[in-house]
């Protein structure tokens, strides 16, 4: 019974934590710009994150080794350090964007000065991480983030062309007006894939498995949570694409503010739809800010061999605790300069894709090594999918920055 409850909560938490500000912006915008034609990227990205999420959880459970320890071990100190610095940069930018997103949501919910809410968001997040246990953070933010399900409900109020939705899941390139539009389509494909497969998700997931004390007996639990949780999470991402395509596109709107996206559930479900969407986003963004700050602290600690863990009292892991506090502070300083959080997240997502191959390659090497994994080594399917996605993200990583520049950040 306890195990079943754990699985159920794990699935809901994985689902509720699937969407963050970057994914929200890119999925809705992708729908508003290209209709249903990018749905196949959501499906592809979901299979990718399931493949590597499962691998990272399995490695953590079997070897009890965190991701960055493996990266250092397999890639060497120098390459590992370069990957660590890049991952920290991406986590910092993403954390900054999420804090900005939380502040924007508080402003639209309660009114008042944006910068005051940035500081309040920082204080709130610091207190949450300091006082709540790892599991409580995961559960509270994951479960309350589930309020974003209003987007799934709202879709049924819109004029969705379900035949086109089905066609959108088949890899395609739609007929577009100009050659630049094709590049923008490619940019959105890259950004969507990256926003679903963000590297911090695997760092955090594996660190969470270690925090929860998983061992080889939790392999099935890991598999169920990843497959069902991420699949249900992708339903939310799909609903956001459908919202963009069927609600915002006909109105010629490409929402550039998180609050603007909430106009869709407000249209379908009235004031309560609006409030549920805003509260759901608040917890989804807040959860992502915490995950990024903690991921940065885990990565630093795992790489340099510091004592780490939320399960330890702060005095027993001082450098780990100082790290996440510093990441939160730096992220807040970035947002207090007045940069648009949505622009920040757009850059962080594109830069994130560049480090994906450096994260996934060592993970794949360990997962397919029988000496490390024993009977829990990758099966045929995990190996095939692992290599396919590694090649895919490597190609996407090469294309990401040129596309960012050529398309003016996807604006055309």
């Amino acid at each position, binding site marked *: 019974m306890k195990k079943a409850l754990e699985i159920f909560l794990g699935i809901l938490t994985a689902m509720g934590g699937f969407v963050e500000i970057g994914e929200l912006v890119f999925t809705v915008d992708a729908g508003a710009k290209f209709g249903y034609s990018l749905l196949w990227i959501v499906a592809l990205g979901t299979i990718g994150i399931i493949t590597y999420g499962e691998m990272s959880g399995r490695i953590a459970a079997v070897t009890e080794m965190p991701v960055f320890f493996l990266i250092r071990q397999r890639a060497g100190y120098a*390459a590992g350090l370069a990957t660590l610095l890049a991952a920290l940069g991406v986590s910092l930018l993403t954390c900054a964007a999420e804090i900005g997103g939380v502040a924007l949501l508080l402003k639209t919910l309660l009114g008042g000065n944006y910068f005051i809410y940035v500081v309040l968001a920082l204080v709130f997040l610091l207190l949450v991480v300091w006082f709540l246990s790892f599991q409580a953070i995961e559960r509270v933010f994951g479960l309350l983030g589930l309020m974003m399900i209003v987007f799934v409900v709202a879709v049924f109020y819109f004029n969705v062309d379900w035949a086109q939705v089905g066609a959108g899941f088949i890899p395609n390139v739609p007929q577009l007006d100009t050659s*630049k539009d094709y590049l923008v389509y490619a940019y959105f494909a890259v950004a969507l894939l990256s926003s679903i497969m963000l590297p911090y998700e695997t760092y955090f997931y594996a660190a969470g498995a270690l925090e929860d004390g998983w061992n080889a007996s939790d392999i099935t639990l890991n598999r169920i949570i990843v497959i069902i949780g991420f699949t249900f999470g992708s339903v939310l991402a799909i609903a956001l694409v459908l919202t963009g395509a069927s609600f915002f596109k006909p*109105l010629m709107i490409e*929402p550039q503010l998180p609050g603007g996206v909430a106009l869709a559930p407000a249209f379908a479900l009235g004031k309560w739809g609006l409030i549920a969407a805003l509260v759901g986003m608040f917890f989804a963004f807040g959860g992502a800010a915490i995950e990024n700050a903690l991921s940065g602290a885990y990565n630093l600690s795992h790489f340099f061999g510091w004592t780490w863990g939320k399960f330890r009292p702060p005095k027993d892991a001082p450098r780990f605790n100082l790290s996440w506090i510093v990441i939160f502070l730096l992220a807040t300083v970035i947002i207090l300069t007045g940069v648009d959080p949505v622009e920040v997240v757009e850059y962080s997502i594109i830069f994130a894709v560049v480090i994906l191959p450096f994260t996934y390659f060592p993970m794949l090497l360990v997962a397919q090594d029988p000496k490390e994994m024993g009977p829990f080594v990758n099966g045929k399917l995990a190996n095939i999918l692992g290599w396919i996605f590694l090649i895919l993200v490597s190609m996407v990583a090469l294309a990401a920055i040129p596309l960012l520049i050529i398309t003016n950040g996807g604006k055309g």
Partner: protein
Amino acid sequence: MARGESRSSKKVDRRARAKLDFWIEAGGILIFCALVAAWFIVSSNEPLDAEGLAIHAGDIRSFSAAGALLSDEFSHGDLTDTFFHEQIELIDDKVEDIGKTLGRSDVRPESKSDAEQLKTFADRAHTTFENARQKDNIKSDELRQLAGLAKALEDNLRKEAEK
């Protein structure tokens, strides 16, 4: 003795190699960041052409249409007062920024008239949003019309840029 020396020289070689690798990778990352920063500075100082104007036209189109939608939903009672006012304020800030950018940027001679037209749209949208902030009332028809005009201009500019 000789074996000990060769072992320690191998260790030194490995360390030197790791140091070299690190500096090559760090240099690569720095060059990459410098290139992105250079692109950002160069592109933001270049005079606006049809492509740049089309991006602003798209923004005005989207913000105007979002304003009209906000107004409709507010009048149907689907939004809270706070949400409506804060969202209008955020959109207005963005539209005002576009107007200011258009006003102070250099524009290529062949795109001057388009830029002026776009500036007029941005100013009209800003005035409408500013009135809404003060009076709780937003002219959604005017915003919808503006969105349509901006869309037409955006399409023309994109075709021009394609040439």
